[in-house]
C-alpha cells in the first residue's frame, strides 16, 4: 500500500542513486574478479574523485553565479573527467604501493584485506585532515530545473545527467571488456591467472589496468555523487559498503551483475523509504546482502568475470 502512493516519486531518486551504486560496484567486482579481493579502499577512490572534481569546478566557477548552456555542459564534463582521472590515479597507486608487494610475496588473503582496510582508514583520515571534516557543497553547475514529470514525479536535470552519464560509462565498459584486447586480458586473468600468464598475458599490467578502470568509474561516480549530495571525507564509507552489497547481489565478479545489482539496490532502498521511517534506510542494503548470501550466494547473474553469462 505504501508503495502505491508515491511510487514514482521514490523510484526516480532510486534510479539515480542506483546508477551511482552501480558505478562503484563495478570497481569492486572488477578487482574481485581478477584478485578475489574485496578492495575496501575502493570507497576512498570514490571519495578522491569527489574532492578532485569539487576543486576543479570550485576553481572554474565564480561563486554565486550559476552557469548555463554550453558552459554548464563543459563544467560537468570537466568535473567528471577530473574526478575519473584522480580516481584512476589513486586506484593505480593503491595497487602499486599496497597490493603489488603483497602479491609478490604471495601473502594470504587476510593480509590483503587488512592492508585494504588500513589504506582506507589512512586515506579518508588524511583527506579529512587536508580538506577539513565538514561537508562541502559542490557549486551549482547548472540550473537544476524540472525537465518533465512522470506520473506526478518530477525529473530534474541533475538526475538526467547522472543517469545518462552512468549508463554511458557502463555501456562503454561493457564494450571494452567484451570486445577489446584489454578486456580479453582482464577476462583471462579473472578466469585463471596462472594459465593466462603461461599464455603470455602480463598479469601485473592487467591487474593495474583493472584497478585503473575501476578507479575511473569510481572517481566519476564520486564527482556525480558530490553534485547530487555533498563532498565529505567520509562520503565513501556507506556508499562503498552498499556498492559491495550491490556487487554481491548481482554476482560478485560479474560486471553486468554489478550494474543490475547497483540499480536494483538503489531502487529497493529508495522505495523502502516510502514504507518505513527514513532512519532505517541503511539497514536495507545489509539485509539484502545477508539474504543474498543465505539464499543465492552466487547473486542474480552468477559469479565469475571470465564466464560471461
Amino acid at each position: 500500500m505504501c508503495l502505491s502512493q508515491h511510487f514514482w516519486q521514490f523510484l526516480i531518486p532510486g534510479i539515480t542513486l542506483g546508477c551511482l551504486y552501480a558505478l562503484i560496484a563495478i570497481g569492486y567486482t572488477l578487482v574481485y574478479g581478477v584478485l578475489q579481493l574485496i578492495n575496501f579502499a575502493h570507497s576512498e577512490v570514490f571519495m578522491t574523485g569527489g574532492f578532485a572534481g569539487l576543486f576543479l569546478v570550485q576553481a572554474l566557477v565564480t561563486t554565486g553565479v550559476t552557469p548555463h548552456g554550453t558552459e554548464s555542459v563543459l563544467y560537468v564534463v570537466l568535473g567528471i573527467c577530473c574526478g575519473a582521472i584522480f580516481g584512476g590515479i589513486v586506484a593505480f597507486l593503491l595497487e602499486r604501493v599496497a597490493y603489488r608487494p603483497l602479491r609478490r610475496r604471495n601473502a594470504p588473503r587476510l593480509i590483503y584485506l587488512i592492508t585494504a582496510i588500513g589504506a582506507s582508514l589512512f586515506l579518508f583520515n588524511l583527506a579529512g585532515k587536508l580538506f577539513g571534516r565538514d561537508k562541502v557543497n559542490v557549486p551549482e553547475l547548472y540550473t537544476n530545473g524540472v525537465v518533465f514529470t512522470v506520473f506526478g514525479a518530477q525529473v530534474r536535470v541533475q538526475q538526467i545527467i547522472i543517469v545518462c552519464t552512468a549508463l554511458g560509462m557502463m555501456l562503454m565498459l561493457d564494450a571494452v571488456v567484451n570486445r577489446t584486447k584489454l578486456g580479453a586480458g582482464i577476462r583471462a586473468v579473472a578466469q585463471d591467472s596462472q594459465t593466462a600468464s603461461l599464455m603470455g598475458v602480463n598479469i601485473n599490467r592487467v591487474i593495474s589496468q583493472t584497478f585503473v578502470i575501476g578507479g575511473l568509474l569510481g572517481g566519476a561516480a564520486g564527482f556525480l555523487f558530490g553534485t547530487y549530495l555533498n563532498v565529505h571525507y567520509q562520503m565513501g564509507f556507506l556508499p562503498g559498503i552498499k556498492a559491495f552489497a550491490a556487487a554481491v547481489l548481482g554476482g560478485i565478479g560479474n560486471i553486468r551483475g554489478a550494474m543490475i545489482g547497483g540499480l536494483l539496490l538503489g531502487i529497493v532502498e529508495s522505495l523502502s523509504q516510502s514504507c518505513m521511517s527514513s532512519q532505517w534506510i541503511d539497514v536495507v542494503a545489509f539485509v539484502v546482502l545477508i539474504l543474498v548470501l543465505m539464499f543465492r550466494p552466487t547473486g542474480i547473474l552468477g559469479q565469475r568475470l571470465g564466464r560471461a553469462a
Partner: protein
Amino acid sequence: MSQVGGLPVRVKRSRKVDPRLVRLFGWLVLGALLRLMTVTTEGTATDHTLVLDAAFKSTALIWWLLGAVAVWALTELWRARKVGSLVSDRTAGARKQWRTVSDRKLTRQLAVLALVLAALIIPNLMSEFYQRVLVDQVAVFVLLAVGLNVVVGWSGLLDLGYIAFFAIGAYTTAYFTGSLPVTPGFRLNPFVILPIAVIVCLIAGLLLGAPTLRLRGDYLAIVTLGFHEIVQLFLVNKNNWTGGNQGVSKPIPHFSINIFGIHYQWTLDSMPYWYLFMGMLAIVVFLFARLEHSKVGRSWTAIREDEVAAAASGVPTVKYKLMAFSIGASTSGLAGVLYGSRLGYINPASFPVVLSITVLSYVIFGGMGAIIGVIAGAALLTFLPAVFQEQNLVRQEDIPMWIGAILVVMMLFRPQGLIPSRRRRRELRLAQQGIADADAMSEAPEGRQ
C-alpha cells in the same frame, strides 16, 4: 580458455631505471607524506590549501626531505656493504642462544611474573589521569584485543563488527541494571551480568556467523561491518528501548561484592577497577592459552593452513570457524560489561565502526596469534595516544590516520607483528613459498559444483 589462447604473446622489455634512484624517489615521497601527516593545522571546508601551504611552504619540509635523503643514503650504504647479512651472520650465535633461553619454560614464567608484578605495582605510581587512561583505554582494549586475536590470529578470519558485540555487552549491562528506558523489573549486580552478556554475545555471534561462514571467509568481513551498522542504527533508533543517542537514562551502577559478609563497592576511583580488569584479563588469557594448545587450537591451525586437508581429516571447518567467531564475540561482550559499568554512561557514539578497525590494528601491530604480542600491541597503541594527548603532541583526530598507516606499513614490512608467535611467522614464510594458506578466507571446501 579460448580468449586466453587467442591472446597475442607480448613480452615487452621495460626500460630499466637505476633501482637506487627509484628508492630515493620513494624515500622523498615518504618524507613529504610524513611532513603532510605531521602538520598541526587542519584544513577547513572553505580553505583547501591551508594544510598544503602549512606543510610545503615551511622550512620543516626541508628537514623532512633531508632526513629522507639521509635515510636513503644509509640504506644504500647498508645494501652496498651487505651490512644486513654481515650483522645477521655475526649475531646468529647470540640469537640462537637468546632463542634457547627465551624458549625455556622458566624464562617465560619469569617474564610473565615480571609483567604481572609490573601491572600490579606500576599503576600505583602514576597520576590519576594515567590511571584513568590505564583502565578506560589500556585495560579495555587489551581485553578486546585478546578476544579479537582468537578470531583473526588463531582462526584466520576477519571480523570488522567486533565492537558491535562490545556494544551489545555494554547495553546488556545497562538493561539488567535497569539503566535503560525498558527495565527487566529487577536489577542485577554487574558480576551476575558477566555470564549473561557472554551468552548473549555468543548467540549473536552464532546467528551472524552461521549464514556467512558457510560461504567464503572473506564475506565475513563485510557482513560483520554491516552488522555493526545495524546494531548502531538499532541503538540510535530504538529510543524507547535504548534511549537512542541520549544514551542510558540512568547511570549504570558500579561493580560490588556483597556475599558471605564481604562488602565491597567499586567507585569512580581507578585502581580498584584496574585490579578487576587485570583479574578478568588473567582469567581470559589463562583460558585462551589452554585453548590454543588444545584440540580446538590445533583445529584452527589446521583450517588456517589448509582448509581442504583439514576437512578431509575430519575437522568440521565451519563449526570451528563459527566457534572462533563466537568466542571472540563473547570476549567482546565481557569487555562491554566491564566498560559499561566502569563508565556509567554509554551511548551509541561510544561504539563507532572505526573502533573495530582500531582494535584490529592493535592485534596486527602486536602480532597476530601471540597473546603476549597482542597485549603488548594494544597496551602500547592505547597508551601512547594518551601521552600524546596529555603533552599535546599529536592532534587526537589524526590518530585514526596514523593507525591506518601503521596497518599498511605493518602488512607490507612485518605482517607477523611486533612480537609474533613462532607458528604464525612460520606460516607466513611458508605462504610466501606458496605452501600454506595462513588464513581461513578461501572458499569452503565443500559444496562446489
